């Protein structure tokens, strides 16, 4: 009995032969590489494994900030720089006294400048006690070769998600991604209005103030209001960027808050924005950079803060052991002992340093913990935001040279 008697069952016996015929007919030339396909070509152009760049020009923005213009280092095989979105950063490789470090820096130039003029601008301020800017200031000159990552980060404008209006809350040096964004709006590449509340000690310490003013003057979608902590000046707000100011300048409900500034500003805003009942959809708070003082946090076990622990790190076939003070992130301890480990954002978000906690206990600031839920169950961590609370053993990813 058959339910399908009009279908020929003998067709089955010919299937393999039929397949063999198709194979026989085909060419035996070598298989084309991925680059033969458009999707792969665009992916490769947007997300190179790394970029070899060379410093073409340096411009002092003020006494403490230098802008470095980086172009493709063709001699090193980099034909052109990868395009990016305003708000993204580059992770810069540094080799300080034989130790390799990575540091993320927001791009302060515009995507259009990358496309048409072939450069990224990184603007780096000298800060007391920070190794990386200090090293960059000492060592980066015109002609210095620098290896950086592809453009990274998700603090970008998306017209389907974000409001038609942007209220930028800017704390001091956090201005760099907004310079890029302001250029992009002025270039007409993003269709949004942006009002920048730019917080500084006084007007003269406002970085990129002239460049921003020029953009504001030429583009009616851009506005800027200075918020000065230590100076009273006509036409400027006095004090800190606070809830009252946000209320005053966020006139339209369809306005997204984009925030970049020091840690204290995030702490304050995270608390205030909830109280102000501004939907989460309209906050875009992200920090790029390292969290350094876990003992400042209320839930940190204070009795541990001066301890020094043993850290055992396995990478592929090799196991290393080192000391890690309680106030040092596992990432920093690993890098300082000369081990190279993949890392991008350094603030727990990107997950590039995803590692397995084999044993021991670590502290991580809760607001930086962006791990996946299953990571928590299976004991995976992002070492860039973890501080040891006991001797610790972890397995880290390999490093691609």
């Amino acid at each position, binding site marked *: 009995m058959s339910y399908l008697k009009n279908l020929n069952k003998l067709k089955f016996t010919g299937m393999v032969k039929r397949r063999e015929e198709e194979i026989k007919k085909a060419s035996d030339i070598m298989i084309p590489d*991925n680059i033969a396909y458009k999707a792969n070509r665009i992916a490769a152009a947007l997300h190179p494994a790394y970029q070899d760049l060379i410093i073409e020009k340096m411009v002092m923005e003020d006494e403490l900030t230098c802008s470095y213009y980086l172009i493709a280092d063709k001699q090193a095989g980099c034909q052109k720089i990868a395009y990016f979105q305003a708000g993204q950063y580059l992770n810069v490789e540094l080799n300080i006294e034989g130790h390799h470090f990575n540091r993320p820096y927001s791009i302060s130039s515009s995507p259009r400048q990358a496309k048409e003029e072939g450069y990224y601008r990184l603007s780096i301020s000298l800060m007391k006690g920070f190794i990386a800017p200090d090293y960059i200031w000492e060592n980066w000159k015109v002609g210095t070769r620098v290896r950086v990552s592809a453009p990274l980060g998700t603090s970008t404008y998306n017209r389907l998600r974000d409001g038609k209006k942007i209220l930028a809350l800017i704390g001091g040096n956090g201005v760099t991604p907004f310079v890029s964004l302001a250029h992009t709006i002025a270039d007409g590449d993003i269709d949004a209005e942006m009002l920048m509340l730019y917080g500084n000690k006084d007007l003269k310490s406002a970085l990129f103030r002239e460049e921003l003013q020029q953009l504001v003057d030429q583009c009616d979608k851009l506005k800027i209001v200075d918020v000065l902590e230590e100076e009273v000046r006509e036409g400027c707000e006095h004090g800190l960027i606070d809830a009252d100011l946000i209320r005053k300048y966020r006139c339209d409900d369809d306005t997204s808050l984009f925030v970049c500034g020091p840690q204290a500003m995030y702490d304050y805003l995270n608390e205030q924005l909830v109280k102000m009942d501004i939907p989460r959809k309209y906050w875009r708070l992200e920090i790029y950079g390292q969290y350094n003082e876990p003992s400042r946090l209320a839930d940190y076990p204070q009795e541990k803060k001066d301890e020094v622990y043993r850290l055992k790190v396995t990478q592929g076939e090799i196991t290393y052991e080192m000391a890690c003070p309680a106030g040092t992130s596992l990432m920093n301890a690993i890098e300082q002992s000369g081990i190279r480990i993949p890392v991008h954002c350094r603030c727990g978000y990107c997950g590039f340093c995803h590692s397995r906690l084999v044993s021991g206990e670590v502290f991580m600031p809760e607001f930086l913990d962006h791990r996946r839920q299953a990571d928590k169950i299976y004991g995976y961590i992002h070492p860039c935001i973890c501080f040891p609370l006991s001797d610790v053993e972890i397995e880290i990813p390999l490093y691609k040279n």
Partner: protein
Amino acid sequence: MHNQYDVIVVGAGNGGLTCAATTAKAGLRTLVLEKHGLPGGCASSFVRGRFEFEPSLHELCAVGTPENPKQVYKMFKELGAEINWCYEDNLFRAICKGENGYDVTLKAGRQAFIESFEKYCPGNRERLEKLFRLQDIDDKAVDYVMKKNGKPNLLTMALKYGDFLRMGSHSVKEVLTELGFDDKAISILSTYWCYLGVPADELNAFHYFNMMTGYIDDGAAMPRYRSHELSLALAKVIEEHGGKIWYNAEVTRFLYDESGKAIGVQINGQQTVYGREIVSNLIPNRVANLSNEENVPQRTRKLMNARRFGISTLTIYLGLNCSREELGLNDYTVFISKDPDSRKQYETKGMYIVNCLNKVIEDSSPPGTCTLFFTAMLEDGDLPEDLDEYNYEKYKTDLAEKYIIDAEKVLGIKIRERIEEIEAATPVTMARYLGTPAGTIYGYRLSEWDNLLARTQSEDSDRTVENLSYVGGHYIHGGGYSTAYDCGHTAALRLIEKYRDQLNRPEEQEVRS
């Protein structure tokens, strides 16, 4: 040359992980090399703001329940991987727009399925019962073939399992037409075709109905904590049994000896490791690109050149700042098409799927929020001529908007004003993360001539390099989680069998412990 490992698995996708978990558990020295920082390949997750998104899984079939476990459930359980399974009773809702359109919601379970189907297409009860009986015949035929180790008596096959041979060599459309279903019923019954990437007039009927009845019989299951949970559970099994997983370890070269046997791989352009067996979760095209030309046999080249790639997709991930109830969506899976004919759906890319995970796992996003996951077919060849890295972001956003607006209209819900997080992925994204040519997610197209059963019967002749085997979506089944798991497991069992004698040697055991 020193064999440091018995098995080197290249790529920690679904096939690679189950293969490695199985070999490690059996005592074979196993090393997994994964180019990303996470295991899983497609089976992963990503975080945006306060949302953790499922990147690829729609519904896992062949899971079953603790009371009635099916092959995936059993496999995870036997391996010792604990998964928090969550279940969905509704099969799907399918909305077809236009004149001959429909809006149907079908239920899982054979009887429930028939009842719900009768509501929309009355008079098909007997035909559906026949369809299920055909599935039972197929199951028995497969059992028989397995029992005969893949070498069945052809006369027995022809006499006892004639309808299996018919199903196995005809298309979904041919079989449904032969059973007497009308166009509307055929359209509804073909809805799942997009899970296999080939329209119903070309798709192998045995393959399709095997999958479909799997969903109908057992419903669909999802892991509680996105697919990342599945992958970490398998990674744990591997590590617990002494296997190693190296992350950020990209294989940059496949190595062969003078006779052409696979012997090892180079990692990150730096170090090399050697193993008795190399198992590739990478698509054969990539392996060819990473091998010397003389190590890619002529048959392999011809096969790869004869094949077309399977589909790729546009996927849109939305985190909404309202609950599922506020949104007003009562379905987990909605298929939306603008033409009832699957060939037209395929050619015009006129079919997409909307999933709301909160229907299955209520707290899969924070209280007062929900997520939507859109999937539409999109292939490398569909990318606009003038698309480049500069206009790509705009292209992607515009395309996402088009689908979102359409879904708002079709489902009568408001999405745009509620978007708190959004990501869109295209073949470019798949090319980036999976590293596959043209961003294919299902490996090779399950063409009429290159269908599941033709591939199964050609397995030995397709295997051209000694000590090199393949697992993953690109292998015989051409995509899907459960089959990728299954083929990894099967490949592992073959290797365990091959090295059985050595596994039992006490001195070897000692060295290992």
